[in-house]
Every structure is written in structure tokens, then in C-alpha cells.
């Protein structure tokens, strides 16, 4: 199937070569339909090199890291710490000690929120988030507020589904001690002006956490230019394995943030009377980590670095444009998020039709999309809907897949409206 899909007119070879690195995209589903994977915002597929890195680790290097005196332990430690350096370079961080491995975005946010609840937030302080946050960037802050007596504030969106910057500025006051904001919304595709947000929030004395779960695969990130106090993402959304993620934090913040979990690795000295903690980044890495996952993430980022990222980004935007043009023709369709300047996903509802039904009928035609609230229940509530249907693209998707998606959507709607 791939050769016919890939020989679409107007498509450069770069995305075709890129696509060929992902074996799962050759899947043929029950009923003989080729898989069309448009659920990339939930998780990306994995290229050969990442799969090979995992197999290679377990085949040749598996060992517990840091403490072993033997050769395998040294090999595993080098690979894991090498991955940390790869991550640091990938996001423009000069000091790998500021790169903490976590299990994912969710754990990164919980780590920071629980630490700030103990060490930074005081009763009456305010934590400012936006109305488009993922539950992972809402609930940990609610818990931090509950523990510290701080108050959660929510910056509203404009009618276009973008952050209302004016309202955001009004909510920024000297009481604002934390701003936690998503870079790219997984439910809307809206892209937030994070550099500006960071500057303005820090100007009132707030610490800023950026949720880069979606941005990591679409944007080029330089944490030093961005200047955020913390930035978090998940490996699985950037072609890496599940169960591994990154928390970057500025040194002056990470030095004083209390540890999240206690255990092995994170200590300097343990006495029954009390313990002292290890240096960064180990202070936040209690227990045997996800060694294979870290190595797999390193392989994923090396894979991305080796690509012509600009060409892939152009292809992704072209896929999005073609999809938007197709959706414009669908009667009764509401698109959420801005029409211009959005990330490569579409989130929509169709009048009189439940998103769940669309999802099932697309699935029957081999097309994987996501339906539901996308872990953004408060946002859905504001729109007065239960959920949307979301198709999200990565550069391995093709124009032919977009056309098949649009065709399948129209067919599903014809059935549902019959």
C-alpha cells in the first residue's frame, strides 16, 4: 500500500523516506483496510531506530546503572547518561544535570507542583493556569493549592480558542506565584505565545512551568531562550517509548525544590536520624529508573535531529491545510481552535451527530482518530459539548491519507444523517 500512497503528486520524497522508518504504518487491519493513523497527538509511532535501541539495550547492555562495578553496568550507565546529554542538547540546555528523567509529562508536573506546595506557595498566593489545560496541568495544581492554601486562577480563552492575553495580564498580579501553561493545546491545536507568557509572568515574580507535551514534536525548543523555570514533556509523543519523560528546571529552582520521592539513588547519606540528598539530577530520581526508556528517548531525539525538520514541518502544515479545506465543505461542522496559526490537528463536532458515532464509523474504515474530552473536561464544559472528534498529524502522514479521512468522514456522516 505504501508505494501508491507515497506517490501522490506534489509530495516531496522527504516525507516518504521519513514514513518508511515506521514499520507499524504498514499495518493492515481486520477486513483488509490499511491503517490510517491520525491519533498522533495521543501518541506518536516509533521508528526502527528506537525499536532497535530498546532491543539492543536488553540484548547487550541490560544492567542496573550507577552502582555496579562491572562492565555491563558501565555500559548501561554510559548509554543512559548519554541519553540525558542528547536530551539536553535537543532542548538547548547546556547543563545535562538540569535534565531529569520522569515517567512522563504528568509526573513532571506533579513533581514540581508538590515541591512548590511545600517550599514556595503560601496561603493567599495564586497559581495561574489557562482554560485549555490538560487535566495533568490542572489537578496537580489543585492539589498544591489545597496543600498550601494558595488559590487557583484560570485565564480564559478568546472566541477563537486562543489564550485571551488581555485577560491573562489582568490576572497576573504580585500575588501570582506560579504560572503553568500549555505550549500547544492537545484539544484545540492552539499555540500559546510562551516566550511572552514567561517574560510577563516572571516580571511579577512568578515561577513558570511550560507543558511541552505536544510542542516537543512540532516546535524547535531552546529552554535558554525561552527562559521558563520548568519545562516538561513525554517521550512517547516525540517518537520515543512510553513511560519516560523529561523535567527540565533552571538550576536555582531545582537546587531548592524539595525531593519528590525518597529511596535509593536520590540520597547522599542515609542515617536513621535523617538523610542528605544527592546532587542534581539524582535528587529527583529515586529508585531504579526506566533505563531502556531513557535510552529509547535518546534514540528518538537523535532520529529527529537527523531529519530536515523544516521540510517535515512544511509537510505537516500542508496536511493540515488540506484537511481544513476539506472540513470547510462539511455541513454543520464546528472547528475548535483558531483557523490560522494552529498546530497540525483538527478538533471538531458536527451538528446533530455524536463524536463517538463518528469515531466508530471512521474506525470501521481503518481510520484511527480520537473522540471524547481529550482530558480537557473543563474546556469541553465551557463549549457546552461532551467531546470532539480529533484527527492529528505527524509528518509520516500523507496527502492520500488526508483524502481518505475526508472521504470516510463524509461517508460516516451520510450514514449517521440518513
Amino acid at each position, binding site marked *: 500500500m505504501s508505494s501508491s500512497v507515497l506517490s501522490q503528486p506534489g509530495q516531496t520524497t522527504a516525507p516518504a523516506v521519513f514514513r518508511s522508518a515506521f514499520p507499524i504504518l504498514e499495518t493492515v487491519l*481486520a*477486513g483488509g483496510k490499511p491503517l490510517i493513523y491520525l491519533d498522533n497527538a495521543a501518541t506518536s509511532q516509533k521508528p526502527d531506530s528506537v525499536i532497535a535501541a530498546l532491543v539492543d539495550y536488553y540484548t547487550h547492555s541490560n544492567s542496573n546503572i550507577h552502582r555496579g562495578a562491572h562492565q555491563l553496568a558501565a555500559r548501561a550507565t554510559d548509554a543512559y547518561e548519554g541519553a540525558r546529554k542528547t536530551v539536553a542538547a535537543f532542548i538547548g540546555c547546556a547543563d545535562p544535570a538540569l535534565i531529569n528523567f520522569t515517567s512522563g509529562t504528568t509526573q513532571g508536573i506533579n513533581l514540581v507542583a508538590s515541591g512548590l506546595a511545600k517550599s514556595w506557595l503560601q496561603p493567599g498566593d495564586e497559581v495561574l493556569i489557562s482554560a485549555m489545560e490538560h487535566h495533568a496541568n490542572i489537578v496537580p495544581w489543585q492539589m498544591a493549592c489545597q496543600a498550601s492554601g494558595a488559590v487557583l486562577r484560570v485565564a480564559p480563552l478568546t472566541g477563537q480558542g486562543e489564550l485571551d492575553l488581555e485577560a491573562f495580564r489582568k490576572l497576573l498580579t504580585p500575588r501570582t506565584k506560579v504560572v503553568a501553561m500549555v505550549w500547544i493545546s492537545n484539544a484545540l491545536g492552539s499555540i500559546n505565545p510562551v516566550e511572552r507568557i514567561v517574560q510577563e509572568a516572571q516580571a511579577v515574580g512568578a515561577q513558570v512551568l511550560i507543558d511541552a507535551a505536544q510542542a516537543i514534536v512540532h516546535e524547535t525548543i531552546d529552554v535558554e531562550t525561552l527562559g521558563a523555570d520548568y519545562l516538561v514533556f513525554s517521550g512517547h509523543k516525540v517518537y520515543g517509548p512510553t513511560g519516560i519523560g523529561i523535567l527540565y528546571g533552571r538550576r536555582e529552582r531545582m537546587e531548592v525544590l524539595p525531593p519528590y520521592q525518597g529511596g535509593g539513588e536520590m540520597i547522599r547519606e542515609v542515617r536513621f536520624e535523617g538523610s542528605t540528598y544527592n546532587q542534581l539530577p539524582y535528587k529527583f530520581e529515586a529508585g531504579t529508573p526506566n533505563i531502556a526508556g531513557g535510552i529509547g528517548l535518546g534514540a528518538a531525539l537523535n532520529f529527529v535531529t537527523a531529519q530536515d525538520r523544516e521540510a517535515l514541518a512544511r509537510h505537516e502544515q500542508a496536511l493540515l491545510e488540506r484537511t481544513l479545506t476539506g472540513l470547510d465543505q462539511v455541513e454543520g461542522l464546528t472547528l475548535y481552535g483558531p483557523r490560522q496559526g494552529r498546530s497540525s490537528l483538527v478538533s471538531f463536532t458536527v451538528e446533530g*451527530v*455524536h463524536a*463517538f*458515532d463518528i469515531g*466508530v*464509523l471512521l*474506525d*470501521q*474504515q481503518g481510520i484511527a482518530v480520537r*473522540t*471524547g474530552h481529550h482530558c480537557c473536561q473543563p474546556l469541553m464544559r465551557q463549549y457546552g459539548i*461532551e467531546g470532539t472528534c480529533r484527527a492529528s498529524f505527524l509528518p509520516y502522514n500523507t496527502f492520500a491519507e488526508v483524502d481518505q479521512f475526508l472521504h470516510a468522514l463524509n*461517508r460516516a456522516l451520510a*450514514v*449517521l444523517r*440518513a
Partner: protein
Amino acid sequence: MKEASGDIALREAEIIEEFSIFEDPMDRYAYLIDVGKKLPELPLALQRDEYLVPGCQSKVWLIGRRKEDRVWFQADSNTAITRGIIALLLRVLSGQPAAAIQRAKLGFLDAIELRSHLSSQRANGLASMILRIKGIAGLDGLETASSDAALPDSSVEPANQSPKQAS
């Protein structure tokens, strides 16, 4: 097995036959949705949270009422495909002896390839619905459902439900 649930088996066989003419899964779903459209709507007053079946991605309200040893059901959903599934389940099970409902294997769901085509999350929703139906059938002298107003006459004879909406 068969002797005890003869009526259920008969109704299942009818459904399997009806669905057997479709080769394209999209046609099968179109028919299922059509079946769902004929399911009488649950009055708004009965679309209460206490009747919601947990574990479904779409909203499913399910109410049962027992008369002597038989149980009648009334149900609805906010999605078209789930309405179709509900209509089939009710057609097979509503008005049957409680013991037969509890024993029913509902093989027709596999035969018409409904279960296998639903994602596991959705299959769980279907499983929750069946669990609730069997749970209601297992209650003694139950009034889960409540008041006498709960069941309009049309649901008493599920096989002959009159279409609410023309299809």
C-alpha cells in the same frame, strides 16, 4: 442450555439472519443505526443520573421492572450506535424470564461481529450494559427502576415496538 432460553435463542437467530446480508461493515452499522432509531425514546424525566450505566463512553440510561418472574427493560443513549445496540439487547431480553436473562450468553453480538469491532473501551461499555441488565434480572422483587410510571406500554412487548421515527 437451549431449552431454557428458547425464546431468547429464537430472537438472537432472527437478528443474526437480518445482519447476515451485509458484507461491508459500514452497511451493517447503517442498519444498526436504523434499528436504534426505532427504539422508543426514554422520556426526559427518566433520563436521570441514577439510571446511567457506568463505564460507557456514551451516556446509557437503563431501567428495568419486574412483573412476576419476567423483567422488562427500557433504555436509551445519546449516541446513535449505542441506541442500536440497546435496541437489539432489549429486543432479545426484555420481557423474558429473569432466570433466562441471567443465563443468556448473547452469542449474537459475536455472530454479527459487533463485539469484535468495538474498541476495548467500547466493548467494556457494552459489557457494563449487559452486567447491569443481568444485575437487574437478579434482584428479587425489584423496583430498580422505580415507579409505575417508568414503563410505557410500548416497552412491554419489545418485539413489536412501534417505530418512533420513520427511517
